[in-house]
């Protein structure tokens, strides 16, 4: 069995099993945590609306800190958008999803994807450098942050290398690319990458909790 055969076969199957297991474990564990009953009278009746509103308002930089966090905020948006455009609109990736879903969609020209992926990588690396050198960010950053960034960077790097046929033969680069995605899948439920699933529920919960007490979230 070659490295590519392993990556496309048992490697991917096991990564998927571990990801599904891990996500179910964490989500159920979090939702079943005991929470103290709030016996106070709610200040508003529209808690659902407050929760949904918080999801939206938290997607924009808070006015008070807008100037200070503008770069971090919008570069975060930029790399997330670039990341998802690269995943969803590159031809071979669409073939991957079509195999799973049974349907595909039009792809973007490969040079466009390549440029977007390169910009995405550059932004991500800039954010890592900022995290390392920023006095506050450095203090609040842990191993989980760096590991999560690392496992996110590797698929972009190996993907660009595979496209450019750089350094190794294509089958090796494709295998490394798929293995790097498997690393993301395995790490996903274990670290901060879970924010992809938790970001909206946690904002909603915070919004309803604050609103109940009459505080703007």
């Amino acid at each position, binding site marked *: 069995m070659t490295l590519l*055969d392993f990556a496309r076969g048992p490697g991917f*199957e096991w990564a998927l099993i571990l990801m*599904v297991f891990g996500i179910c474990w964490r989500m159920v564990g979090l939702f*079943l945590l005991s929470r103290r009953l709030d016996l106070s009278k709610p200040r508003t009746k529209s808690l659902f609306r407050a929760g949904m509103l918080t999801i939206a308002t938290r997607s924009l930089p808070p006015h008070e800190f807008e100037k200070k966090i503008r770069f971090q905020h919008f570069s975060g948006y930029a790399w997330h958008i670039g990341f998802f455009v690269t995943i969803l609109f590159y*031809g071979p990736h669409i*073939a991957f999803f079509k*195999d799973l879903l049974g349907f595909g969609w039009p792809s973007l*020209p490969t040079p466009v994807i390549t440029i977007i992926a390169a910009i995405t990588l550059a932004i991500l690396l800039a954010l890592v450098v900022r995290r390392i050198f920023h006095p506050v960010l450095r203090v609040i950053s842990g191993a989980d942050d760096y590991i999560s960034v690392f496992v996110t960077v590797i698929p972009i790097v190996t993907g660009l290398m595979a496209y450019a046929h750089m350094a190794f033969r294509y089958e090796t680069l494709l295998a490394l690319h798929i293995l790097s995605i498997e690393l993301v899948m395995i790490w996903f439920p274990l670290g901060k990458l879970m924010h992809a699933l938790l970001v909206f529920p946690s904002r909603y919960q915070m919004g309803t909790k604050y609103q109940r007490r009459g505080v703007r979230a």
Partner: protein
Amino acid sequence: MKQTSTLGDNLNNLGISRRAFVKFCAATGSMMALPPMLWPQLVQALENARRPSVIWLSFQECTGCSESLTRSHSPTVEGLIFDSISLDYHHTLQAASGAAAEAARLQAMEENFGKYLVVVDGSIPLGNSGFSTIAGISNLDMLMETVKGAAAVISIGTCASFGGIAHASPNPTGAVGVMELVKDKPIINVSGCPPIPMVITGVLSHYLAFNSLPDLDHLHRPKAFYGHSIHDRCYRRSYYDKGQFAESFDDEGAKKGWCLYKLGCKGPTTYNACATLKWNQGVSFPIESGHPCLGCSEPDFWDKGSFYAAQSTTQWGTGETLATAAVAGVAVGTANAIIARRRKKQAQQKEPES
């Protein structure tokens, strides 16, 4: 047959002009990526080369490789070069049969000991010696006996090189390629199902001219022909780079000749000269005819999933397996939550009342 006449004598007798011969040498030298300064040496060496004795062993095979080599060209200089080797043993082509055929093999081995070439097509079954025999001799015994006095072994086709289709799972005969059995002789693998005729004539020309094997890759294939992937040399590569793919065999992309990656083309991971040498005297090759590359010159090509699945696709496993993983995750998560609640309760009970 003893090595007596030279290749130059033989070509003269066949009425081949020196001009045609030199043109062939230039083409071969170019094809083998030899520097131009070596071409005169190639001409001289080929002219003076003795006709090597070749023993062709056919084991578990479909004769496609022999068909490819003998029928794909009308008589050309390359064909005549091929005729000009002393093919002393070949089941399909020789007139003799039975004991006389085996006697020809033994005679060629004895007279040219240490100098003859062994060409093998077909895989060798290890499961049971009776699976494939010739004149009552098992394939394994015949191979090991014949290669003893060989100068080199050339495995023609993917079956002889890597086991090929017979080696595919579940491999009922225990088929293997020559490389797994012969360890003490130089081996050249000319893989493909079937291989390109020009590749075998190129390898033979190189051997005749320089009395050595060409540069080989990690799978013992001549780098001159297997050094680049089909994808690297494919005329449809520009469509891949632009992200223009055929989605089905009859859509607009297919009609426009766009890249066949999404239809399962194995070109990016297949190393062969199909895209440059092509087939049927340079007429076409599978991708040019609208079909994705199957990757037939690579080991285990038959066991790498669907021929029509893109290489970026993976095995997703079964729904049952994933459902089991999900249920296990829910169970562990629930157990964790219960334990956490208990601990919290115990901690609250221990707290002194204020």
